[in-house]
């Protein structure tokens, strides 16, 4: 258990030391490659500008994730209740999924007429498919004998959905949610790049673009570090949520020593 944290931590530390050493020994200028110390300094110095940007990106990410959960689960339930709805809609969900977001982002930005809304739509588009497809899989992965039992006791579609299909789908949904959390962040960042907006409420991607134009490479790195940290934090939080919800009963959340 501890090895799971110590091993990557030691590895990361070694890489940082190596990076710093190379930058210093080869005397690489900071506008080509800043060392970790310079990046950390910039992170602190520019915090007043980077923190609000992080807030903007995280807000879009979380809103998109929430929308992905709502739409993904509702659609999955709808599909599971009606074969016809699924047959007629699922192909379009796939088309949305396989179309590269950078290709449709300009369209969405032009149509939505509102930067925040268009960013939200882009991030949502990227995030919602894993939730949809995983939840559908989960709703279908119900023990058929349990289904027979529900039929025997005269449970209708709704009771079967609430007491059987939804709980059975929970582990699958949570697996999809973990993937979607990261994707929502990627979607938000990519859309920001495409939108390339200025204004007073700009996210981290715009800060990276801006720093690139100004050749402030350490700031680019600092913004990058924040995006990675946000992604890792989202993943860890969703993993924790999954563990808390499943630890009582699902194999995936039960350690070997128990």
């Amino acid at each position: 258990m501890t090895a799971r944290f110590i091993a990557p931590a030691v590895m990361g530390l070694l890489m940082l030391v190596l990076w710093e050493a190379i930058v210093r020994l080869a005397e690489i200028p900071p506008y080509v490659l800043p060392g970790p110390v310079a990046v950390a300094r910039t992170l602190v110095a520019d915090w007043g500008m980077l923190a609000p940007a992080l807030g903007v990106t995280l807000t879009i990410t979380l809103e998109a994730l929430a929308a992905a959960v709502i739409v993904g689960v509702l659609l999955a339930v709808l599909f599971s209740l009606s074969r016809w709805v699924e047959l007629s809609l699922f192909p379009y969900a796939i088309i949305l999924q396989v179309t590269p977001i950078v290709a449709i982002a300009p369209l969405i930005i032009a149509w939505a007429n509102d930067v925040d809304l268009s960013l939200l739509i882009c991030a949502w588009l990227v995030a919602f498919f894993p939730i949809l497809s995983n939840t559908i899989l989960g709703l279908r992965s119900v023990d058929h004998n349990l289904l027979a039992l529900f039929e025997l006791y005269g449970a209708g579609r709704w009771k079967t959905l609430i007491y059987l299909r939804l709980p059975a789908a929970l582990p699958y949904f949570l697996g999809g949610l973990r993937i979607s959390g990261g994707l929502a962040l990627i979607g938000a960042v990519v859309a920001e790049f495409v939108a390339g907006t200025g204004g007073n409420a700009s996210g981290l991607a715009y800060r990276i673009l801006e720093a690139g134009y100004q050749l402030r490479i350490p700031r680019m790195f600092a913004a990058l570090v924040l995006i990675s940290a946000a992604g890792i934090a989202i993943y860890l939080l969703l993993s924790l949520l999954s563990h808390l919800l499943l630890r009582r009963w699902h194999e995936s959340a039960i350690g070997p020593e128990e």
Partner: protein
Amino acid sequence: MQLVGVRGVAKVFANGVKALDGASLDIEAGEFLSVLGPSGCGKSTLLRLIAGLTPASAGTIEWPAGKPDLGFVFQEPTLMPWATALANVELPLKLGGVARSEREARAAEALDHVGLAGFERTWPRELSGGMKMRVSIARALVTRPKLLLMDEPFAALDEITRRRLNTDLLELWQRTRFTAVFVTHSVFESVFLSQRIAVMSTRPGRVLSELAIPAPYPRTEAFGTSAEYAALCRLASAQLSEAMAA
């Protein structure tokens, strides 16, 4: 009094497999009946037909005194892993709209009857195979059904656990007097448990012969080692061979 009449029932599945053809069987209220047949002969299909879980392709299933509440026990425990033992047993009552407090009391009582008092808050993964099966039986009995259908419920258990569950099942049956239909492919199990054995042919299945087991209850370990038991097993075994050859 007759509870169920299976009359010339056939079942052809969508893929063309004919599982049953001309199966007929009378089930008396309160009796312990075993359905004995080789694997794949349509025993599960017959049970599902009686339960109304699948329609017959031909023939009818009659309920002279109306269709009663029934319980079903599958070969696997078929518990909901996200629910405690108590919540699993409560399920039929919950689906039937019984109020929570009554539900919990009756589920706890049912668990007590199968020897699992004190295990109410346990999760299925914490229970052994035999205990899970007991929970499954408690769930089937919690609605106090007139008819209990069991589909090879102990086939996946070890010999020792199976014997205990057989004895306990008989005790439950004597106490509660539901009608028991017990599907098995084991000659020994069917002779030990039942008053009557219906022997099925290979697929497409039908009931080829019947055998009465006149030994009195309670049937104990002593019955299981008696000469009478051995003779009855030989008889049942011969009928099964005949059915498989037919």
